[in-house]
Structures are given as C-alpha cells and as structure tokens.
C-alpha cells in the first residue's frame, strides 16, 4: 500500500482526504467519486463537502465532533473501492461554449501558441475541439479549472501578471483552462473570450458549472459573439448544455 490516500485535519474546520501530491487524471476522478460517496453517506457531523484538484474536504466542526470518529468512518469508506479506478459520478453536464479566439478580445492567443510550439491556426483548431472536464471550482465563485489539455499545452504561467482580463475570459496554462468569473489579474494567457457567466448571484441556480462537468469551446467570430451578447439574458452566452450519462 502506498502513502496515498492521506487523511489530515484542517484546523478545527474539517478533514481532508488527498489522493496524490500533484494533479493527475485518476486522482481528480477519485476525488470526484469519493466526494459523491461521502455525500451519499450523509454523515450528520459533515456540514458540507468540496473537492480541490486531487482531494476531498469535509467541513466538520472538530470542537463538536471528535476527529477520530470521522477519520475511522473515512478509512472504512476508502477501503470499499479502488477510488483511482472509480467511474465519474452521475448527473454531469456537457457544455458547448461559443468562444472568440485571438483578436483584440483575447490578445494572447499567438503568444500562447508560440509557447506551445504550434502556429495560431493549429492552436485554435486544437483548443476549439478539445473536450475538457471541470477539475475543480475555486479562487472565485463558480470559477472552473478545466483539463487536461494535451501535453502541447503544458505551458508555464507567464512571469509577470496581466493586469486584468475581463469576466468570461478563457485563459490557458499547465494543460488547464479557466473561464474567469470576474475581471481579475492573472499569470495565465488570455486566448479566448466567451460571454459565459460562471456566477449568477441573482439566479435560482447561481453556479453554472459543477466539478465533473465537461466543456468544449467551439470557435465563433467576433460578430457572432456580439450577437449572442446582445440577446443573452440567461448568462449562458449562447452555450448549449446536454446531460452526460
């Protein structure tokens, strides 16, 4: 048996189950599946659960519920399956999000293509047809970290930060994509622009995406995106959604 998975307390706020020490597809899948199993177990001391790239966090008030009891239950649940081989949980969605690549809307496409060692047309062809999964949501409300892209896109973050990319910006680094929730500074390169709103505080369902959802970013023209923006009130930015089974 290896050192993984690891169970650790996090302050007095809860318990963390980690499946690896760095991002990998099986560890991310294990985190999604294990979180679903913890949610299904519905333990009374667990207030909420969440995943990061390779781990599951259980919010537990450790001053009210002793950590040992929860850890024991976690060990039992971990032993019930090989979580690294677990299938993805049910109830996920596949999104097609119209995206303008390059142009003045996304000025770093060429720079990112160069860093990846491909020409801009190849970059757009690859990026607009790659299907990625929401690995985790974090940093800002509803903000997805998606991957993994092919090894071509294992490009580093830039040294200096871009002062600000707008909400809906599609950025790339380390084989991952992000759609920004709010205007934000970033070290990731701005390669595409969408009209997709990841966080809709006034809506009944404020968060558009969940970990495990999958996305494709088909290429559209600036004129098409302008048309979408003009009539979109949902926040979907012209995106279509279908249930994954």
């Amino acid at each position, binding site marked *: 048996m290896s050192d993984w998975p690891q169970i650790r307390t996090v302050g007095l706020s809860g318990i963390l189950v980690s499946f690896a020490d760095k991002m990998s597809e099986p560890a991310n899948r294990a985190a999604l599946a294990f979180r679903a199993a913890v949610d299904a177990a519905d333990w009374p001391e667990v207030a909420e*659960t969440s995943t990061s790239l390779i781990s599951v966090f259980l919010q537990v008030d450790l001053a009210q519920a002793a950590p040992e009891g929860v850890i024991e239950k976690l060990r039992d649940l971990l032993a019930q399956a090989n979580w690294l081989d677990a299938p993805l949980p049910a109830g996920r969605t596949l999104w097609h999000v119209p995206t303008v690549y390059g142009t003045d809307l996304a000025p770093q496409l060429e720079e990112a293509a160069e860093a990846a060692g491909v020409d801009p047309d190849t970059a757009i062809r690859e990026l607009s047809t790659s299907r990625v999964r929401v690995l985790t949501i974090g940093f800002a409300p509803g903000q997805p970290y998606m991957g993994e892209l092919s090894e071509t896109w294992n490009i580093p973050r830039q040294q200096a930060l871009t002062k600000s990319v707008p909400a809906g910006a599609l950025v790339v680094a380390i084989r991952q994509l992000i759609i920004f929730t709010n205007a934000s500074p970033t070290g990731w390169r701005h390669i595409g622009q969408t009209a997709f709103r990841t966080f809709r505080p006034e809506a009944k369902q404020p968060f558009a995406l969940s970990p495990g959802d999958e996305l494709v970013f088909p290429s559209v023209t600036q004129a098409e995106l302008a048309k979408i923006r003009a009539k979109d009130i949902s926040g979907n930015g012209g995106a279509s959604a279908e249930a994954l089974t």
Partner: protein
Amino acid sequence: MSGHLDIVQAGPGLSLQDLGRPGFRAQGLTIGGAADPVALYEGAAILGQSANLAALEMAGSGGAFRVSVDMRIALTGAEMAANIDGDPLIWNASYLLPAGATLTIGGARNGSYGYLHVGGGFDTSPQMGSRSSHLSAGLGRALQAGDSLPLGQDGTGQTGMTLTPVTRFGGGAVRVVASMQTASFSPDTRDRFTQTEFVRDARANRMGVRMDQPGEGFTTEGQLTIVSEVIVPGDIQITGDGAPFVLMYECQTTGGYPRIGTVIPCDLPRVAQAQTGAAIRFEFVEMAEAIALQTRFLAELKALPSKVTPLVRDPANIRDLLGYQLISGAVSAQANPFEEEN
C-alpha cells in the same frame, strides 16, 4: 411600520454582515460574514435578539446614520467615538435612536471592526441565504452615503443595557494548530515563527491580514510547487515574500501557498480586531487543547445574554436626560432641550 436607516455619511469599509453564507465552498464561495462574529453575538445579547440578524460592519471608521422611526440600536466590536445629535455614547451598549436624530460614529480607538446593530435587524432580501456582502466575490457591495436600508420588525425590547466585551482587542497571543503543510516547514523555521513578535500590517482586509516582522521571511522546501488545496479561515499562508497572511472569512476557497498552521476559530477575532501596528505572537497548541479552548469559547458565547446588565444610571448623563424627555414626548427630536430652559 416599515422603517429604514439612511446612511448620511459612510466610512470606506461599511457593509452589511451576518454570520455568513455556508454551503457553497464546493462552488468557490467562502462563508464570508462578519470579520468579527463575536461582535454579532454581543450585539444580539445586548438587544435580546438572534445573532443571525444582520448588522452594519464598520471597518476603521463609521459614518452618520438616521432612522425614519424610533429605533433601538447597539454598538459593539472596535470601540469608536459615537454620539446622537452630539450627546456621547458609551460603546458596548444599547440606546434608543429617535426618528430623525443623527447617530455619528467616528474612527476606531481600539480595534479594527465596529458594529452597529438595530432592533429586529436589517430587512434586506437575503441572497443565497444570507444578507452579508461578500465583497471579494462581487456579491453585494460596500455601502455609501445615500443608501437606505430597510429595518426589520423589532419587539418591545429594552435599551440602556450593556455588556463587558469578550477579550480580543489589542493583539496578543494567538493559538494555532498544525495544519496540512506545517510539517513541510523545518523545526527551526517553526520555532522562529513562534518566537517572532509580529506586527499587524496595514495590508489587511476581510480576506486576510498580513503579519510584518523585521527578520528574514519564512520558507519551505518546494514552496512554489505545492498543489492548490482547500483554504479554511484562520489558515496562515506563507506568501512568496515569506510573510505570513492570516486568512479571514472572505478568503478564497483554494490556494497554492503553503500554510504553516491554522489559527483556532476562537482566536480569529483577535486577529481581525488587532489594529495596524498591534503586536501578535503565534503559539502552537495540541489538537486536544485547541478543542478544549474552542468548546469553552462556544459556551462563553452562549452565556452572553446572561451577562447583560443595565447601564449605570448617572443623573448627570446627558444622553439619559434627552432620552427621558423624548419618551415623555415633551420635545421633538430636532429641538435642543436646553434652549427652552434659557
């Protein structure tokens, strides 16, 4: 009756806060809520109402406020100079704020976050189950002069009540438990961390509080390669320049900087309320001790309503005289009662 509170003048960090918005961590939204939740429990105890009601949080300084109906108020948290139409108020106490009178709250004298509570709370529409503004998430916003907040329905509670605040002002010792990445710091670094007297930096907000010190920074092997991991309030994140940042309730949900430890929840208000320049020292405690300290703290919060006492009635207290005359209906709120005597 549907009264409202008008903000006549607003300090830079004025926002509506309650105990926060739990349940959305998986979607990237931290709990947020009052920077010093203890103040919400104290205000609730003084007014004899629920701690779940929202209050106005005032970072550093207050503002000027007027209500459309007679209203009970209470002041808690960082002590600030306050008066109603010029008559000074004692902090950590409740008053009647007459319709049309002006409540003026100045700069913090001790602490960082002051709170203005109203009887019945504020009756804004909850968003995702809470009335608190989550400024870093873009949920709600800072309040400004000209804003008007609807007031909730108040019972027939008392005013002129007070409470000795829970000890948490002026910095001091802050207890910490080991966390996920504590072991990735060398024992020497951890020792130096607990032996260092830090100063609360001016760089602080509802997301985090930076700790300053004259020596070299605190580093760990492989600092920049740690996979992004869950953040909880109280985590002490060591940023690129080696300075500790204590993360507060409005922090991000995940972060890639290593955490040297986690401030236990009962000591987090002490970090929130340490004013710029206050000295802070971190002290590691074992998990069992942390649990005992937190359990005692929760019992203390629960017992707050039983600690409320009447403000000592001093006949020379001008505020009381004014209140008495108002209750008798002899003068209007705007009139100067002393003019009539001349």
